[in-house]
């Protein structure tokens, strides 16, 4: 037997052991520190417009516009929520209707095959407003990823579990709420992780073209002013946003999927 008498009522030894205390990420800190030191050494020998020192980058960081960061984050968050809702809705429609899936799949494949740069060009050609352009690009890039992941996740729900639940005669809504969605949750969270990093990269490129706010625009300005330190500073901000966003999703994942072995 896996559970034994050491566990208090309602809990097992494994559940208690699962509460691992916080572990300092030593390896990550060490490797990043080594990289930072190497960079600093390199900056002593290379000209500042090629490899700026950490001091220069830090000074540039202080001058960056915080509102640009906030604007980019709002754009990413808004577009991801919209993509998620659209992706989930269409995936459920495809799951429930074979004709919708048969006709819809090729369209989704086509959308996914179009390079991001082409979408940005289409957005510039088709839409007048910058916010619409950016939202369009993000949704058309991230939406299909959510859709395909959800659909595959729903299809992967074991037939055994579906038959078990079906034997209790649930309504269709109950089948989704009690089985399909919880079973697909790991896929949904992985999809969020993928789309977060994808969206942050795509929004920056989209902001390079036509936007007058946001991190992408900040990068364009820095490049036009030949301020390499500022380009690096913006890059650091983007990397930090990605790290934090992934850490947040991982934390949610840890809590939501604590039932996993």
């Amino acid at each position, binding site marked *: 037997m*896996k*559970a034994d008498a050491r566990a208090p009522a*309602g809990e*097992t030894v494994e559940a208690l052991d699962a509460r691992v205390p916080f572990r300092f990420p030593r390896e990550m800190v060490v490797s990043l520190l080594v990289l930072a030191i190497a960079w600093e050494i390199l900056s002593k020998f290379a000209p500042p417009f090629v490899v700026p020192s950490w001091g220069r980058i830090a000074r540039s960081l202080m001058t960056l516009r915080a509102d640009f960061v906030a604007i980019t984050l709002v754009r990413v968050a808004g577009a991801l929520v919209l993509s998620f809702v659209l992706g989930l809705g269409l995936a459920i429609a495809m799951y429930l209707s074979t004709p919708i899936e048969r006709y819809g799949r090729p369209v989704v494949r086509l959308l996914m095959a179009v390079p991001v740069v082409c979408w940005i060009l289409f957005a510039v050609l088709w839409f007048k407003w910058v916010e619409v352009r950016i939202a369009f690009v993000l949704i058309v890039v991230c939406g299909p990823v959510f859709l395909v992941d959800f659909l595959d996740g729903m299809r992967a729900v074991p037939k055994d579990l579906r038959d078990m639940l079906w*034997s*209790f005669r649930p309504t269709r809504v109950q089948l989704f709420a*009690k089985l399909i969605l*919880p079973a697909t949750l790991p896929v949904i969270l992985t999809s969020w992780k993928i789309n977060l990093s994808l969206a942050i990269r795509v929004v920056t490129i989209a902001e390079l073209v036509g936007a007058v706010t946001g991190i992408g625009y900040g990068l364009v300005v820095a490049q036009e002013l030949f301020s390499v330190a500022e380009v690096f500073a913006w890059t650091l901000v983007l990397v930090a946003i990605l790290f934090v966003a992934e850490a947040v999703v991982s934390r949610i994942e840890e809590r939501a999927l604590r*039932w*996993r072995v």
Partner: protein
Amino acid sequence: MTVAEAIEVSGLRKTFHQAGTGAAVLAIERLDFVIRRGEMVAIVGQTGCGKSTFLNLLIGLDRPSAGRIAIDGKTPYDDFASFRGRLAAVFQQDRLLPWRSAVDNVRLPLELLGYERGEQLERARTWLERLGLERFAGAYPHELSGGMRQRVALARAFALQPGLLLADEAFGHLDEVTSAALRQTFVEIARREGNTAVLVTHQLEEAIEMGDRILVFAKPARLLADISLRRWPSAELPGLRAMIQRMLQTNEPDPEIRRREETSR
């Protein structure tokens, strides 16, 4: 509340079509029998003889190709929703939802039926206690042993207090000690609750131990024998066991069993 069901099976036939080739595979050739209320009926047969297919038809997961299967006059497939809360199944694998704790798995059918949360929890905890799992109510399935998980699955079925209980090789994959204990628990509770029970098994011992009646299926499924165990004194059970084994090997009815069953009717 327990309303036991009567099951009528007449001219039942089921064929499947193989994916790709489209070739028809006969799973159930023809079945005709009746299961009375409160009976505990064991179905035995070779592996792949259509026992589980029959159970799926009984649960309403699949539609017969021909003939009829009815519980209290209603067909489980066509009158699907009318069986809400009236039947529960225990399968070979526990089929617990891995993201739900033991108590949450047990209360699942009650949740689907719209019971108030307090009542769901109370009933679920009562059944876990009756099956000796009160200390593990908060444990996730992966934290429990195979036997404990199967007990949770049994608690889930019993918590619904259904009229009809179906078990598909529910004890076969466990070690003998655990399996025997669970079989005993199942029979005790099912009798106390007055359930009609249909048990599919490939283990003859299990069928003889648990059933009031044994239906022996040929491969593909047709009825080789319908044996009422109360007509067979324990001294004659070894002989009966040998006759059933012979039937399963030859795929033909046994004249001695047929004569005996017909005489006693």
